[in-house]
């Protein structure tokens, strides 16, 4: 209850523009939200910018935050929704780029990789990109952020059995992809 009151107080102070509260809020959730955005976004290069936007959106929507809710879970649910919107916008943009590239008979160069990318990372990155969003999100939240099944339910707004089934099917598909049984 103490933590809950603290969260409510923190988000309210953020909304009032209290710089110390905003500082604490940003340090506390910034890295984790960026990590989530990086895993979720089709264009992870934008993750830092998107993470900042997510944090601002959460402060602006703080009127909807209810006492008793977990602030971390609440910020995550906003992050998931924002990342979904960004992905949809990115898909539209990519579609336009592809069309324009085709028209100009050129090729778009996707900058991928970097010194820190390992083979495992690439394999997993590739496999994860092949999952659809509803299966990818529980995997990211569970393995990337350690959320329990119950917490994933609260973030995504779906029931426990649905989350369990999505985890099961996501793992099964990842297994097939990583073992080369599915391209």
């Amino acid at each position, binding site marked *: 209850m103490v933590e809950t009151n603290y969260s409510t107080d923190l988000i309210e102070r953020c909304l009032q523009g209290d710089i110390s509260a*905003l500082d604490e*809020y*940003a340090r506390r959730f910034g890295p984790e939200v960026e990590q989530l955005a*990086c895993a979720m976004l089709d264009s*992870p290069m934008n993750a830092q910018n998107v993470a900042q936007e997510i944090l601002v959106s959460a402060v602006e929507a703080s009127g909807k935050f209810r006492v008793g809710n977990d602030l971390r879970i609440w910020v995550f649910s906003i992050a998931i929704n924002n990342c979904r919107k960004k992905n949809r916008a990115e898909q539209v943009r990519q579609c336009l780029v592809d069309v324009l590239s085709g028209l100009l008979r050129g090729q778009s160069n996707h900058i991928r990789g970097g010194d820190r990318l390992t083979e495992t990372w690439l394999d*997993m990155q590739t496999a994860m990109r092949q999952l659809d969003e509803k299966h990818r999100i529980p995997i990211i939240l569970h393995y990337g952020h350690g959320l329990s099944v119950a917490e994933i339910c609260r973030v995504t707004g779906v029931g426990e059995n649905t989350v*369990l*089934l999505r985890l099961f099917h996501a793992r099964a598909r*990842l297994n097939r992809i990583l073992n080369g049984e599915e391209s």
Partner: protein
Amino acid sequence: MVERAALSHDQAQEWIHRVIDGVLTIEQRTQLDEHLDECGDCRLYAVQAQKLDRQLSRSVPLLGVSMKETKIYGGADLRDRLRRRSKNRMIAYTTIGLITLGILFGLWLSPGGFEAKIQSSDTIPRTPTASSSEFARQLIFEERHSDESNIYRINADGSGLEKLYSDNLNKSLPRLSPGGSKLAFVAVSKGTPEILFTDLFGGRLQLLSVDNEKDLPWVDMTWSPDEQKLAVIRAFKAISGGIQTRRSFTIDGTSEGPLLILNLDGSDVVEVAGSHNITWSPQWSPDGQRLYFQSAVYGFSRIYSVRADGSDIKSVGTLSGGVEQGAFAISPNGNQIAYFLLSRSRDKSNVDTLVLSSLDGDNTQVLRSFEAGQFDIGRTIRFGYVSFSPDGSQLLYVSPDSRAQALKLLDLTTGEETLLFYDENIGLPDRRPIWSPDGKYIAFATGKKLFILSVFPNLPDSPTSFIQVYESNGLGIGSVQWLVEDHTLESR
């Protein structure tokens, strides 16, 4: 001991993942273990699942590792973004507001302005403010063309002709409610005649849905005094050799048919006179308790009345001295009825009369006698008319006399008769003349022309006798109604 059903491989593999997720119950875990003891494939699957779980635990967090330099999140950045967003939002709202204002201003400047926009919608704007002249009043009438009919509004001095409703529906039978606030009319949509009604002061059109015989036209209707019901007459198909009547009231191959009373929402439909009766001229009693109408149930015209719920049908008035009852009118106080008694005889020893009696037929008083044969019987029964002035002191009627049929006014107090209108070039009204609510004027249409008569031509702001308000370039003018905001009767 309860025997458990054997676990399938699919179920077992799903449960293996539930073990990983930590949500399997102890009982389920026991059941799964029993299955794994016996099933090598599922044991292998369990090993692979655990391996994948470890792999995901290692790899997935790496997906969230940014390829950029690690960012130190701070409150200053967030505050700047919050301010920027707030500013952007204010600019966006201001822009939208200015654009909206610009559009509204443009509409205001455009020809016709808001009024034109309102006209194009399904509402009728309020009557313009009355000037000092009584003739600032307005009329609603139906004009018929060969391929369409429409409803128009016109000032009583002939100015300001305006078509009501800009759609392409054929519209006819305009009927104003007694309070003057509602208008009902018939519109033909895709070949189906529908009754529409609206509140004149800002309401939208509403459909009065009546299910029976949808393809047959409506031929007459009248509002109940409380404006909550309509009495409507729907035509029925003329059946060759079928329905026998002595007179043909055929309109486009149909005849006036069943009389229905129904609420404005289409509920409580009462078919009053039965589907095989010819009915016409429905008129409500002033208290709205009974509906009066003419019918030719037995081949002879008679006046009947019925309760609003369709019960207690009974004939009205008397037949003494005549074999048929003609046109009738209920007095404004609801106590008396005036009607023609027609002998239908060419024998000059017989007489036709205009009588006044109480509604139950007592105290019958002959107001006027006419030599038999002078009336055009069919016309007088069907299209003839008699009507009380709004204050009940005078009676307007068609008189057959040596000057052919003329429109006359009978003062019920003094018995004095006035020739109100006779013009052999114009002829008699095609439709029932309509008193203005203050009883000063009478509007009527004949052929293609719409006229207004002054009941008191000596009034300073009245026309000398009658004026032609409008002449149609179509087939003719149908129903006419007064559109007046203030229905308060002036004392005279």
